[in-house]
């Protein structure tokens, strides 16, 4: 069973992940893959305690890539969460053969343009998305399971190869 969801979300572990996706897919482990959070003792503890009843691993990209195959063969289901397309790309390029990322939340910041209510991209994001698509990775835009699923390239011409 293992990998149930790979999600790109700049809120990391939060309500939609725990309540909406968590209730639908019932993960027993979550892998928060973020070099900055993994290197910050306080923030790592915040996220390790964020999901009651779920084992949370907060790791950097290299460690996540090394652990990916082991988790794929493990009993019980798991989520993996990264904060942006750049981290998703780094994870795949480091050797994690992720087939699909759910794009669940990339909120507004200066220089980014709107793709959906909860997805804003800039040129660097689009380059990362194109690189992932070129590797055969599917990018699905959907905030919660009850929402309609869209391909990122259908919603944003800028990510088409």
């Amino acid at each position, binding site marked *: 069973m293992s990998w149930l969801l790979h999600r790109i979300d700049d809120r*990391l572990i939060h309500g939609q992940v725990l309540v909406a996706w968590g209730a639908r897919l019932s993960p027993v482990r979550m892998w928060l893959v973020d070099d900055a959070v993994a290197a910050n003792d306080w*923030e790592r503890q*915040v996220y390790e305690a964020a999901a009651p009843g779920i084992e949370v691993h907060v790791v950097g990209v290299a460690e996540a890539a090394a652990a990916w195959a082991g988790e794929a063969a493990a009993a019980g289901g798991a989520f993996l969460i990264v904060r942006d397309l750049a981290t998703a790309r780094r994870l795949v390029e480091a050797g994690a053969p992720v087939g699909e990322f759910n794009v669940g939340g990339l909120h507004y910041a200066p220089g980014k343009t709107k793709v959906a209510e909860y997805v804003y991209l800039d040129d660097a994001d689009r380059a990362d998305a194109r690189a992932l698509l070129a590797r055969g990775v599917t990018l699905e835009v959907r905030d919660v399971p009850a929402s309609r699923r869209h391909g990122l390239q259908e919603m944003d011409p800028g990510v088409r190869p």
Partner: protein
Amino acid sequence: MSASAGGPAAGNGRAAGGRVPALLVTHAGLAPALLEAAKRVYGPFEGVEMISNEGLSRDALQERIVSIAGGWPAGGLVLTDFWGGSCHTSGLAAAGSCHGVVILSGVNLPMLLDYLHNRDTMDISTLAERLQQKGRDSIRVQRGPGA
């Protein structure tokens, strides 16, 4: 971490006799609705700040929390709507870079009312523990005939 968790030196630095400041961090329009409801029950009051996470990334939300809680000279309370939500994790993450901030998750109207009644007389840690208990005690199941 427990249900109430604080950042560095949480609750130890409030000046004697000062009011404990509070910040509500919630999803959508919950915080203004809670404050409006509290005003109906308690009467007019000021001094409770609020932030919605609407449209904000984790980093942007954390920055906004720090912009308020980081300015409290002797700490204060950050009240969030539910454990594990972005309001809560961002509040906790923000507390790590502030002084004397205590986080309380699961804010409800009884907790907010009790905060208003006691913010001028209690220190931060004692008040936080009291509000945690108040929130829990306010949730009860009662059954009507045939239920």
